[in-house]
């Protein structure tokens, strides 16, 4: 009995799948690419627990357990990279409200033409590549003949070598990001604000609400769902300082402040070919991010209706 009904069930399923075969064909390229280039490397992560020799391959290389994790925890680079990564991450994270404030202020601009021009101009830096940004900063901040050097000399002072300073690295990293992306990052909040019904503002005006009150009691509550979603996504990447900019801005003078996990993984793995060691460091980083993401999502679930899943 049961068998027959489950068989009928299966048949119905197959029928529905068969009817929509075209959809599976549409999914095929993306699924194949992900399997080959994202899921296959996930399996390759086991080299973090092995002594990987390219000649032997992943399967044949001997297991070594947690040897490479211990090696990382005991190396003197461990605390430096962790400290720098956490510091830069938290510093960037502290900038999270800037695009929100930016969007609220832009939303207050009344002259429509000006507002549009303002937005277009503040989006522009987003389209500049990381390499050009790094080059730009080297040109502008150079103590010798950069804009900053000239500015200091105008006041008769000697410019500090900002690019070569380990302690200033995090500030350079974070504030150049603010310069480049604030306008662009505010788009999503501006979109949420533009969805606010004008009747809400009109009602508030009739009730005699000031501008501040409208921002505080209408704008900000309308932004909360967007803020929570983006906040969760941000925390998931908390311990992931991007490789691209950190690597470009690194030099021998600031290395003690600029070596982060991602650049260290690159140097160990690809420049000095210690594959297993590099994979172990990388995995450690990924796991922490993953744990943070789940934690924050749980917290968000508990205290508000907004969560990722």
């Amino acid at each position, binding site marked *: 009995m049961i068998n027959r009904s489950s068989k009928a069930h299966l048949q119905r399923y197959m029928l529905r799948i068969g009817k929509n075969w075209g959809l599976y064909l549409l999914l095929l390229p993306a699924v194949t690419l*992900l399997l080959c280039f994202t899921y296959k490397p996930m399996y390759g992560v086991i080299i973090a627990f092995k002594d990987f020799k390219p000649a032997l391959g992943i399967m044949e290389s001997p297991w070594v357990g947690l040897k490479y994790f211990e090696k990382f925890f005991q190396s003197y680079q461990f605390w430096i990279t962790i400290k720098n990564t956490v510091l830069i991450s938290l510093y960037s994270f502290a900038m999270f409200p800037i695009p929100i404030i930016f969007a609220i202020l832009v939303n207050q601009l009344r002259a429509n033409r000006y507002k549009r021009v303002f937005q277009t101009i503040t989006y522009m830096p987003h389209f500049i590549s990381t390499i050009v940004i790094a080059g730009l900063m080297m040109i502008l901040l150079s103590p010798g003949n950069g804009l900053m050097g000239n500015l200091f000399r105008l006041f008769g002072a000697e410019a500090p070598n900002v690019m070569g300073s380990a302690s200033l690295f995090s500030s350079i990293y974070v504030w150049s990001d603010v310069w480049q992306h604030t306008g662009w990052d505010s788009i999503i909040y501006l979109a949420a604000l533009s969805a606010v019904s004008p009747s809400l503002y009109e009602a508030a005006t009739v009730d005699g609400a000031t501008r501040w009150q409208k921002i505080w009691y209408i704008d900000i509550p309308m932004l909360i769902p967007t803020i929570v979603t983006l906040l969760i996504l941000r925390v998931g990447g908390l311990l992931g300082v991007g490789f691209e900019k950190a690597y470009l801005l690194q030099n021998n003078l600031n290395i003690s402040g600029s070596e982060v996990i991602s650049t260290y993984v690159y140097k160990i793995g690809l420049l000095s070919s210690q594959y297993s060691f590099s994979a172990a460091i990388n995995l450690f980083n990924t796991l922490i991010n993953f744990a943070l993401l789940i934690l924050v999502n749980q917290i968000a679930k508990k205290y508000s209706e907004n969560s990722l899943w």
Partner: protein
Amino acid sequence: METATNHVLPIKRKRDNDKLLETLLYTWSVIVLILVLYPLYFIVIASFSDPSAVGNGKVWLWPQGFTWDGYKELFNHSNIWIGYRNTIAYTVVGTAIGLAVNLSAAYALSRKDLVGIKPLSFFFIFTMFFNGGLVPTFLTIRDFNLYDTFLVMVLPFSVAVFDIIVARTFFRTGIPAELWEAAQIDGCGNLRFFALMVLPLSKAIISVLALWFAVGHWNSYFNALIYLQNKDLHPLQLVLRDILVTNQMQNALGTGEAAQIALRLANLLRYSVIIVATLPIMCLYPFVQKHFNKGVMIGAVKS
């Protein structure tokens, strides 16, 4: 008397207050505009100026000692043009592949009658939060014989899950289910429906994704740094890195008068190359701007 002034005062104060706020707001916006524009403007005027004037701090508002030398110098570096050619090829092919792969996946996932939609969605979303990391990915690329090929720049990493989610939301809200039901009655299959009905109705999302992919390909250097060795395959960004960041031009110079001239040109080149590399991609945005309507972005937020 007293009550009357009491009534007038708050309103007047409120107006003054409003005026003050308005002034502060516009002052703030002008300061922001200057902060954003001046560094860019400085690069433009420096690219037309005598490098020694730039070095001495004479260049503030207008080019000093006007010269085209920086732009002429661009033609003496064939690697810049090889990089340019490669970047255009990667951007065009990569954007086309990215659109094809992601739009079709997004449409399939937008259909609620797709059997297995939950595990399939998980299959995609999981990759946003977990990956094999640099070395395992590198080894995989090598196993597929893609190291140092044109293909590695456009194919393996073309699936963009975030973009799929945005496009899926767009399809769900923008393509009514009745349309598919009607097409089905007329005997139209899924593939024909996607190509002839869905895509023509989705110009907004297609142009937004095309912009994202194009900017991504134009500006990225990470994959090229990791997977390309052959200089003839290098994209513009890697050439820029040699010129702007590692200063290979200057290090290669000797001393003496010829070296002085070469140094001058190398300095100028740093400005002109920034302009030439950045302008094309910046000009793309205004064409797509009108599609960045609230619909698309809200879709991004909601999902």
